[in-house]
């Protein structure tokens, strides 16, 4: 019995070490955000601030107010539209199969694997032609469309768990396709909606590249791009940057802490 105990101790020491290592950036971010510019230069990034101040947090919030609102709009509209379409498509792919529906589903899922890098230029061109390039509308549209395949996949896999007899019973009882969706599937969709919404929130909130190439001007920037702009032109204002990063990370952090199990379900394809 001695060896397993020893193994366990070593394991815990290693795990503790990894925990410290992975939490270090967050710690550094928090303490730096609470320091004055002078203290940032004079101390190492891990020491606790001698004179904690909320000024950097306030200042960065002032700057990020508009981008934060922008990102909220993007997340809100993206979730609503892609979850709506994802749920309907998931229902069709799971319970109303037709000739060629499997092929169609495979095509939809393949969309998830097209790297954004190859889509950058065509997308910018398309948005320009549509007259949307540069403003927030382009991102709104983009996330709505890009979120749908993922949502479809999540809804499809979770709807597969609903017994077919529910659908058949409703059919025999006189319900049509739309009634079955509305009265049976939709009320049973709380978990897929939460899972899909959470995944979309993290994807849209953390996205940087699309905001960078599709939007112009502070009024249109999503929060990730605006945060990158916080670094000063001549001197790096670390405390401001870290404070900004905290504001950006806060929503996703809260979501992961409280609703992380649902996100795990989404990744596991449950």
């Amino acid at each position, binding site marked *: 019995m001695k060896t397993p105990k020893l193994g366990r101790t070593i394991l815990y020491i290693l795990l503790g070490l990894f925990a410290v290592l992975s939490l270090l950036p967050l710690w550094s971010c928090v303490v730096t955000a609470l320091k004055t510019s002078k203290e940032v230069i004079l101390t190492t990034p891990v020491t606790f601030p001698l004179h904690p101040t909320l000024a950097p947090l306030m200042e960065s919030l002032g700057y990020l107010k508009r981008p934060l609102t922008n990102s909220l709009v993007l997340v809100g509209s993206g979730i609503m539209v892609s979850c709506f379409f994802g749920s309907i498509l998931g229902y069709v792919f799971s319970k109303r199969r037709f000739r060629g529906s499997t092929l169609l589903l495979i095509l939809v899922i393949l969309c998830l694997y097209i790297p954004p890098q190859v889509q950058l230029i065509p997308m910018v061109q398309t948005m320009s032609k549509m007259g949307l390039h540069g403003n927030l509308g382009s991102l709104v549209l983009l996330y709505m469309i890009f979120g749908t395949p993922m949502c479809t996949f999540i809804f499809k896999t979770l709807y597969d768990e609903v017994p077919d007899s529910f659908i*058949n019973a409703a059919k*025999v009882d006189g319900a049509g396709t739309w009634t079955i969706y509305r009265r*049976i599937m939709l009320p*049973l969709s709380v978990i897929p909606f939460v899972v899909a919404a959470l995944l979309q929130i993290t994807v849209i909130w953390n996205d940087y590249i699309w905001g960078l190439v599709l939007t112009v001007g502070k009024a249109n920037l999503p929060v990730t791009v605006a945060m990158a702009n916080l670094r000063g032109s001549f001197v790096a204002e670390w405390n401001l940057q870290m404070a900004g990063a905290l504001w950006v990370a806060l929503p996703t952090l809260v979501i992961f802490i409280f609703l992380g199990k649902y996100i795990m379900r989404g990744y596991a394809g449950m």
Partner: protein
Amino acid sequence: MASLTIKGLTKRYGETAAVESLDLEVKDKEFVVLVGPSGCGKTTTLNSIAGLVEIDEGEIWFGDELVTSPERGISKIPQEREVAMVFQDYAIYPHMTVFGNIAFPLEIRKVNKREIEARVRKAAQLLEIEELLSRKPKALSGGQRQRIALGRAMVRDPKIFLLDEPLANLDAKLRVRARVELRKLQQELGVTAIFVTHDQVEAMTIGDRIAVMNDGHLEQMGTPSELYHNPRNRFVAGFIGSPSMSMLEGRLEEKNGDLVIDLKFCVYKLPKKARELMKKTTLSEVILGIRPENIVITKESKGRRPEPVEGNSFEATIVHIELTGKESNVHLEAGGSPLIAIRSSTQDLRAGDKVWLSFDEEKIHVFDQKSGKALL
């Protein structure tokens, strides 16, 4: 009015036919059971009646209304057929209350609220689930769920009730009670019912008539007693009855003017009556079938052989004795063939004993080995 006629129903999945040219006639207010081993096509047949699967060939009539006919391009969707269905898993919607579940078909048909309330209460009263109406189905037992499913089927006053193994998920004791109640309910409501099961005991006890299916074909249709006493072929004979009929392979021969079956370990002389009935049959490989209750076991008494009953008795060894309660199943072996007999008292018998067997002549069955058809 609500009779059901199926003519030449064929349903294929790819190359394999789940059901092949099935003819079935169900009279008004009749309780018919479709029984057969799993994969025999009984559920496909039921789903075809409900309109849940599209058939490849044949016609389905509800009374004088043609509901399915691919040849004529008629295929009414399930919503338009006046059938109600109870599924094996009951398909109780977890997000609705019991009331909501039972009221669901009425709400879809836009029946007014007061009427819904009245009809759901009436059904609940009949099924004795009134006190459950406001509850969510999550914590309910199998028996209660089954009643809810029945209630949902009842409220619509359908022409035909389709029941897909509705008792399979109940425990054995409850199943026996539910069987009686279901039968009573069907008679009270005066509906036509088609009940699918793989359990032949259930089929025998619940049905007015039974349709035995195998491999997509209808093997035989008849009353429980017809199927038990006059099986048309080897499959029906083996499927109906528990413990099942013992089957002994042999050769039909003529010896000294008598018709006999050479079983290798015994030459079994068929009764005179059989001669008349089997005049036209050619001598061939046959199977001698005998139900367990028609096997008579005689104990060999100390070295002295008991008088053979008209020469038609033979020696067998007891392999195992199963006590089922009132009776015992005696598993025997004679010349390498297994046999099962039922006996009410087995105090004088032990496993390993040598005994003498004879059959009740009136009750023997003879089947052709090749075609499986009953010759006697």
